[in-house]
């Protein structure tokens, strides 16, 4: 009996001690970059021993959690405006760029075979185009036999930065969409069924013949769902891949973007993918614990430098070096703990 008690107390002590080597960092947010973030946290633990925990809960939840300080960093595909950042005492910086692709499940259509343009896309998601053999779609795809199946739109049922990127694009290319639905992390979708986070849409599209959805590129590739070619601003049909995403980010003017707020949809350029986006990390300017803050920034620095290879492997575009330098200078300026600067260049 005594032995059991002692064993029980020892077990409780073991369970209540936080990780002894380094503090565990907690982050939550967008599912858009989650495949890369997860691998980064795993690799970082192997490399340095520090534990980082990332929960993919959607951009909306990520912003909420960092604002209410239940996590150490938040992740969002929808950047906050400078006003909102200052109000919440946060800074944000870009971590990755990636592409939102359109996926379809239509019998007989192979990967990157179908061609669509922005306005048609807006009409499909707006419920105006109801069948796959609609003349508008057929005009863009001469020579492809399209079945007379009804279109099932699949959208997000949670608050999502991916949705924000996609609806921003739709608002830019279709004035009808902009008026009727608009852009946001969550919108009033005219038609369709909802899936939770990127995998939710992917799962649904895979299961429903005749469906169309929008997800981050890695999810489409790794789940082997056919993607669609889109007509970009220059009038060319492009396939989604690392090159077309990079082209979208090539001329981005980071210096003059307050809070690095950047919209990469519908950018000019012959090879540009029209629905590209940036995904951001949000942290507090005032950190409570200087050691934890140092670990946090060291982790992100590692992600920029060592993590770039993994990101590229999964078809995300790493942030270019000059921008990284800008970001880290900003860390030195803005982030402090108890009055002391955290990041020394």
């Amino acid at each position, binding site marked *: 009996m005594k032995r059991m008690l002692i064993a029980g107390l020892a077990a409780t002590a073991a369970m209540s001690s936080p990780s002894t080597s380094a503090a565990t960092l907690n982050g939550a947010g967008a599912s858009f970059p989650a495949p890369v973030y997860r691998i980064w946290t795993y690799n970082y633990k192997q490399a340095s021993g520090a534990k980082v925990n990332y929960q993919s809960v959607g951009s909306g939840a990520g912003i909420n959690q960092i604002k209410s300080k239940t996590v150490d960093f938040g992740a969002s595909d929808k950047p906050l405006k400078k006003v909102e950042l200052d109000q919440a005492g946060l800074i944000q910086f870009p971590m990755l760029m990636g592409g939102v692709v359109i996926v379809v499940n239509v019998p007989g259509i192979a990967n990157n075979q179908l061609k669509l343009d922005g306005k048609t896309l807006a009409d499909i998601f707006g419920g105006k185009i109801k069948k796959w053999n609609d003349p508008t779609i057929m005009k863009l795809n001469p020579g492809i036999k399209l079945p007379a199946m009804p279109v099932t739109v699949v959208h997000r049922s949670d*608050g999502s930065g991916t949705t924000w990127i996609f609806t921003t694009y739709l608002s830019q290319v279709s004035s009808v969409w902009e008026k009727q639905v608009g852009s946001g992390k969550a919108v009033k979708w005219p038609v369709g069924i909802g899936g939770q986070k990127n995998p939710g849409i992917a799962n*649904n599209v895979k*299961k429903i013949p005749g469906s169309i959805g929008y997800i981050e590129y890695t999810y489409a590739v790794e789940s082997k769902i056919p993607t669609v070619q889109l007509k970009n601003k220059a009038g060319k049909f492009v396939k989604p891949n690392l090159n077309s995403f990079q082209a979208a980010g090539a001329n981005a003017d980071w210096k003059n973007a307050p809070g690095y707020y950047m919209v990469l949809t519908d950018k000019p350029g012959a090879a540009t993918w029209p629905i590209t986006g940036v995904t951001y990390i949000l942290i507090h300017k005032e950190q409570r614990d200087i050691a934890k803050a140092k670990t946090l920034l060291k982790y992100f620095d590692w992600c920029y430098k060592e993590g770039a290879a993994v990101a590229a492997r999964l078809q995300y575009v790493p942030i270019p070096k000059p921008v990284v330098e800008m970001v880290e200078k900003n860390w030195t300026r803005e982030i402090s703990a108890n009055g002391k600067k955290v990041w020394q260049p």
Partner: protein
Amino acid sequence: MATVKKQFLNHNKLDKVFRVICVSAALLICLILAGVLVQLLYYALPAVKRFGFNFLVSSNWDPVNHIYGALPAITGTLLTTAIALLIAVPVSFIVAMYLVESASPYVSAPIGFALDLLAAVPSIIYGMWGLFVFIPFMQKLVRIMTGITFNGYGFLTSGIILALMILPFICAIMRDVFKMVPPVLKEAAFGAGATSWEVTCDINMKYGAGGLLGAIFLGLGRAVGETMAVLFVVGNIQAVPRSLLSSGTTIAATLANNFSEAEGILKSVLFELGLILLLISLAIQIVAQLWLNRVRKQMGEK
């Protein structure tokens, strides 16, 4: 004598203390029940103040402009529960009747066992099976039977899976009710020339009406709050049911979907939805318990 008394603990006092500890533990149950109710009320108050009664009848779910309505969730819960009961109650009744009246013990024991297993399967398994196996099956079934292209998600699918989940519970209670009918009544009816079915209809059902209703209410209670199984297959859009095959949501599914990211008024809205669900299931549970208590008293007296 005085020295002997000093050696003993004051057991009278200890017994009193023990009784107090036990009463407190038992009262904790009432405290928790009240606590859940009060807490949901407290957190739901901002939403109640902002939307008022209109919340219950509005189907406008607009996260961009922070306007929410509970009608899709409430009607979704009602519809899936109604479908589940419509399927599960007659089937349970017939199965219970068969197991008690007609089947030999060699058949009824393993089938009873199988039904108990069906009751023990965790709800997330039903959800996974529903998502990966049942939805493609429903797509094909509906296409074969009616020619409609069905995406598999929706109220009908959720209703059927819910029916599967509550069937064992209702059936078990109905079996107990049928077993409690005094044999003399049944034998008298058989003696007068009644068939099995007539005995069940006229004798068992009328005698055990209270218990049967209690069983239905308990199944209803279970169906109303089921989250995981429905979440995977209902379609997850805030839309009032247009048909059996349309997609929508239920209160529990809306809670599970939106809670982690909710902020501001949405969080309060979700608590209000939780409050509505709590009130519905409290009402169902209380009615069920009152019925069953009355039935037990009747059976006890007779």
